[in-house]
């Protein structure tokens, strides 16, 4: 198992793991935000903004893995 094979195996698995984490995070965020919106519809715009920012933070982790994949993809020969 050389360097390229390890990289070729590791990159997709890494992205998948990162996506699992982000998915759990976004799921919790959405659950909390939806519950709060259902209980208090008055603060809906504020909650939406906070939720979108939170989505951005949670999603960014997967994006980092994605960018790393693109940077390392060229090393798989």
């Amino acid at each position, binding site marked *: 198992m050389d360097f390229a094979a390890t990289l070729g195996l590791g990159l997709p698995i890494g992205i998948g793991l990162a996506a699992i984490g982000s998915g759990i995070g976004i799921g919790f965020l959405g659950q909390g935000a939806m519950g709060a919106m259902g209980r208090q519809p008055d603060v*809906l*715009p*504020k909650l*939406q*903004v906070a939720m*979108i*920012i939170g*989505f*951005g933070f949670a*999603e*960014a982790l997967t*994006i*980092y893995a*994605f*960018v790393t994949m*693109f*940077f390392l*993809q*060229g090393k798989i020969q």
Partner: protein
Amino acid sequence: MALALTALILPAHPGAAISLAAGQILAAMNFFFLEKLVKLFTEAAISKSPAEASLLRARLLLFAGIKVSVVYGGAFALTRWNALELWPLVGGLSLPLVALFFKAIMLAVSSGPENLLRRAPSTAGSSGNLAKPAAFILLAGALLFAAPSANASKPLIALPHATADSATTHSGASDSAAIATGAAHTADGGGTHGEGAKGGEAHGGGGVAHLPNWITILNDFFPKNGVIHWMHENEYLVFAWLAGVVFLGITWFGMRKPTMVPGPIQNAIEWMVESMEDVCGGMLGKHLPKYFPYIITVFFYVLTMNLIGIIPGFKSSTSTLDVTLALALITFLYVQFTGLRNLGPLGYIDHLAGSPRDVVGFIMLPVMIPVHILGELAKPVSLSCRLFGNIFGEDTLIVVFVGATALCLKASLVALAVPPMLGISALFMLLQALTSIVQALIFALLATVYLYMMLPHEEHAHGNQEHAHGSSH
């Protein structure tokens, strides 16, 4: 968008372009007559006097007759006329529908209908403030100009081998593939790759396929032209400038003569500016008027650059790390400068040290200062990588599916290619519109949050900080 598409394919495939234009004109006429009919129908339904109602009903019948004869007769004639090709016609017919779909998505993203109905003419002045956006775009352009020459990040992405997708799309661009995917050929792939390598750098193509834009097509037609070659090498820069010009043009056009009862464009601009003002005002409070021009400029600039990538033949400038890093660095410097000016040098160092107020805080000082400095330095990295990764990933997704569609079309598997594959890529384009808006919003909101963290807070506001802030006003 439609005109751009037609003009794009006109030189290579005149028949296809004419069919596309015919389809678009037909769809436009259909919408026009439909609007007239609906208007007449509602007017007839609510009109008071019977004579007026009967007159309106007669006009309704007349318009219905014209619509049926023109639109459906035209459609029948077009399908009979052999010079026209089927797929471009269908594409032209469906383009307005796609545009409508985008509009619906944009409406759904906003926070409810009451925002649409509410109008505040008093804020017409705040978005007519064109000087700051212009200065900012010039600054961004200057920074971007420095970025490609340094060429720091391009070799990381430019990979040496070409994928099967790009090679096949390049060689086998049949007419229907060209129209159905809105792209003639992936010119950054195999064909021009040798030229790029000969020119000193392997630009763009390779392992990560790009859809061609009008600059790559121009470069294919005039490979010797110096200006076009320069544009081809710095296409992100060209599209960033284009986004700036488009954004300034729309703003100027909409805000040329601001009126109390705004027209459609003015209303749209005011609505967007006001929504952002509401959101940022919740965070910045009384500091809003000072920092809002920067935030809204970043928002509109990033939004324009993101959305311009949806138009076939254009490219999102934000799908390269050069542009996003330049934007993030500008934001970072602005935030640090704001912190220094508002908190003062001592207050700034105090902020970096985590505002120690007790014994434990001072003991933790050697640990806290590096942590906070690292946190500050992580801001531009996270801002730029988030924007770049989102837009670039979405683009790559669409390229992969468009390439699969072209592959199926080349193997004459039209039944397999067009409904599922094209449907999937159209869905991803809707997703791209959503991502573009959300990412621009997140970029602007994070800039707001970083600015907010640099401002003196009311909770632990101290006399000297308040004084420093007061004098800076």
